[in-house]
Every structure is written in C-alpha cells, then in structure tokens.
C-alpha cells in the first residue's frame, strides 16, 4: 500500500487529522512528560514523602476547572451548583492541605544547628 492510499482509509485519516489538529498540544505533553521525569528523578529518597505530598498539592490545580464551572452555571441550576460547590471545596482542600502539610514536613528537615 502506498502512502496516499494508506491515508485514504477512514480510521487512519481520522487519527492523522486529529494528531495534525492537536500537534502543538501533543508536543507540549511529550515535553512535559520528559521534563517532569527528569526533574523528579533527581529528588533524593530522603524527600520522597514531601515530594509526593507536594505533587499531590500541585494536582489540586484542577481547582481552576472547578472555578471556571462555578462562574458559568446558571444561578437556578441547583444540582450543578451543589456539585460544583463540592468540587471547589475538594480542590481547595487538596491544595491547602497539600502545601501546608508539605511545608510542615520540610520544616523538620531544615538544619537545626
């Protein structure tokens, strides 16, 4: 099969078009994965627990999505207001708890002399 007839099959075309349309995002994700692994691999075992709770707090950036939702839901849509409100609460809890507890742990690691 030559290249053009390969492209003509529907699934291939859909997949190729999807990749083509999102090529920037795909590059972005790839770089993030490798940079993330590279940076995190350098963290010594001593700090793995704070690393994990700190990373946990960073995943609370999902709160951004929850805020966008809360500003968009109509005021009389009680179901979505409730769900969104809980989402904001959980996201904030994740961020605040995560960073505070990481800070508390790291304070113990600072030199005492």
């Amino acid at each position, binding site marked *: 099969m030559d290249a053009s007839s390969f492209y003509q099959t529907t699934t291939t075309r859909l997949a190729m078009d999807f990749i083509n349309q999102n090529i920037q995002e795909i590059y972005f994700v790839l770089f993030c994965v490798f940079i993330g692994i590279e940076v995190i691999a350098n963290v010594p075992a*001593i700090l793995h627990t704070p690393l994990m709770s700190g990373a946990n707090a960073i995943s609370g950036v999902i709160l951004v999505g929850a805020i966008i939702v809360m500003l968009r839901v109509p005021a009389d849509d009680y179901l979505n207001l409730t769900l969104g409100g809980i989402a904001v*609460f959980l996201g904030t809890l994740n961020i605040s708890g995560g960073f505070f507890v990481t800070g508390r742990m790291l304070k113990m690691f600072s030199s005492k002399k």
Partner: protein
Amino acid sequence: MYAIIEVGYLLATISFLGGLKFMSSPKNAKTGNLIAAMGMVLAVVLTFVAAITATVPYTNLTIMFLAIAIGTLIGKRLSDKVEMTGMPQLVSLFNATGGGCAMLLGLVEANQMDITTSILGNQILLIAGLVTGAIALTGSIIAERKLAGKVKDRRSKSVIFSARILLGLMVLLPVLYFFGIIPIGFTAFMYVLATLAMVYGVLFVLPIGGADMPVVISLLNSITGIATAFAGFVYGNKAMIAGGIFVGAAGILLTLLMCKAMNRSLLKVLAGTFKKSKNGIVEEEQDIKEISISETAMSLSFAQKVAIVPGYGLAVAQAQHICGQLQQLLEKRHVGVDYIIHPVAGRMPGHMNVLLAEANVEYSHLKEMDEGNENMEQYDVVLVLGANDVVNPAAENNPDSPVYGMPIIRVYESKQVIVIKRSMNKGYAGVQNDLFGLDNCCILFGDAKVSLQEIVNQLKLI
C-alpha cells in the same frame, strides 16, 4: 488582558516545575514548596479574574467563596493536627479530594454540555477525566482506611475477578456508546461510568496487601495527576495539563521505584499475588548468638561509627524518638551515628526519613541504601531495628529464595551486626534470614521500643 492571563498561567507552570526542582535538596525544598504554592495561588486568582463577568450571579460567587474558605481552613487544620506516622493516610485523603474534584467536574460539564454541538474529542476527554478521577477518589479512600487499619485485605477470587470485569466494561462501554449502540443520553451515561469507576476503585485497592501500600499510594497519586491533565485538555488550560502531567510522572516514577525496591512487579502488586517460595527449600539450622542489653550498650559506646537500619517495625512501635535520643547520647561520646534507610522502610516512599526528621535527626545522617552499602565496612556496629527482609543476604546469594534479587542493605559487611527482634518469626516475605546465622551477627530479643529505652538507660550510666 488576555495576554496577561496567558503569561500568568505560564508563570504558574514554571513555578510548579521550579518547585519540584527545588525538592532535590533538603536545604531548598522549603523554598520550592513555597514557590509552587505561590504559582497555585496565581493560577487560581487569574482564572477567577479571567472568567468573572458582571452577569455571574451572587449565589454562585457566595457558594464558591464559602467552599474555598472552608476548604482552606480544613486543609490547614488537618495538616496541623496530623501525626507524622499518619502521613500516608493524610496524603491518601488529599489525593481522594483531588480525584473527587476531577470526577465532579466531569459530571457538571456533562450536565451542561450540548451533546449536538460538542466535538467527540472533548467527550472522550471528559470521560477519561471522570473515570480516572472516580478511581482515584474511592481507591484513595480505601487506601486511607487500610492504612488506618480499619479495612482488611480481601484477596478473594471474586473481588479480583469483578475488578477485571469492571475494568473491561469501562473500556468497552464508551466504545459501544460512541457507535450508538447504547441508547441513553450522554449525561446518564456519565453517571453510569462514574458509578462503575467508583466501584472499581474500591475493588482495585481491596486485595492489595498492607505492605504493598507504598506502591498503591504512589500509583493513585499518579492517577489523580492524569485526571487533572485530562481536565486541562477539556478547558484548554496549559497550567492544568502541565501540573497534571508532572504529578502523573512523579507518581509513576515512585511507583516503579517502590516496586523495584520490593522486588515485585507492578502487575503482581495490582493482582494481589505473592511470590511463593519454591518447594524443597531446606531451612538450615542457624547458630544464633544472643546478646544482652548491657553488652549492646557496651559495644555501642566503644564503637567509632554506628549505623542504625530502621524498618517498618520501628515505625509501628513508634520508637523513632528513642532512636533519636540514643543517637544524641552516642554523639556525646564521640560515636558517629548514621541511619541507613531502605527505600521501602515505612508505609509510603520516604516515610522513614520524615519520622526520623521529626525525632530531630539531622538529614545529613540519613543515608540512602547505596551510600550506606558503599561505606558499610567502616561501621563498627550496625543496629537493625524492625527490619528483616531488607538485610537478608539470601537476596544476593540464594537464587532459590523468594527475596532473591531484592536490593538489600549489606549489613553483614560491617564488623558487628546487632538485630533487635521480638522473636525468631519470619519477615514479611516469610523466609528465613541467613543473616542471623552469620558469625558477626547477634540478636537482642525484645520489643524494639523497650529494648532501645533500656539501652539508652544503660548508656546514661556508663
């Protein structure tokens, strides 16, 4: 205005990465945490500024600010109150909140989505975020309950089997749905998927043994990160995508590290299976030498360099503070004390280091396994506290042993090894420890905490 917001998100992303980068040394880690936290505040404030319009109803704003205020306060309270031994539970709990947030976002978006105009890619991303979030939510809650000792392992075939069926369904159903075979609305379909994923989260963690918890916590942490990244795609928000992926990468990396340190494959941990020892292992009679408290105190005080190998048992006995006291006493006598810490000591990655740091141990005395092994011959006495399999030489020289291949702390290379043990019971892997029969190894029978206290008392007298 738009440009300012984009630049702000860029700064937030850089701060996340910088924060993680600063974690590579104990000295800078605190700054790193602060940088990441500031980036987070920036991202949240910017989102608010960008999305707020005059038409946003007061009800929404009130609910949102209340939720933020309560969330911040509770987070602060929980983190102030937690005991360091309870850290794995708290991290699991916070992980559950992140997953829960991702799941709810998926539901709200589905409720509001106009199915006729939205594109397929967005729907798939929503489903992915919802499913991963729901798994992280219930999985982390079960992990937290297990760590707290409230839920026991359920390793029955039916649990494992149902979990696999659910996993298959969660892949299959969306495919069928998008081919139009399942005739229900998108919203209803999302609720079904959320329910399935939540049940799966429970069943997935239930069979996993308590000692494998470090692996599971890391994995769940990674899943939450991935859920965040999916949500980031839905909103086209690069800070969310990057943050999520960094967390996902960190989680996966720690998961694999823990698996390697425990000599178990990730698949086996997830399936809840254990390596059985091969039949026909001949358990040799061991010639065990006992040592008394005062003899231990003597050899510790006459040593030049002492290493302490703490294990899970030390954390269980809550003996880390007495350990710190012992170190201070020895240092007064100019005996150098190091801790050599195996990666799986404690209940989550790096947990033992936190426990010892809380007991006022300087981080420069906390040695990683490789560093400790390199300098092992310099130690006059190695005190093994509540560790067993991680010091078993069979891992290096007995291919028939179930622990074979596991990286160990080579305490047998030191001049003298003293193991504090309650009885001759076997360790987690259920194998005889060849170390105990060696010439340079003595055993001090007794509870770790009580024995340590007595050694400390003796040292004060000498």
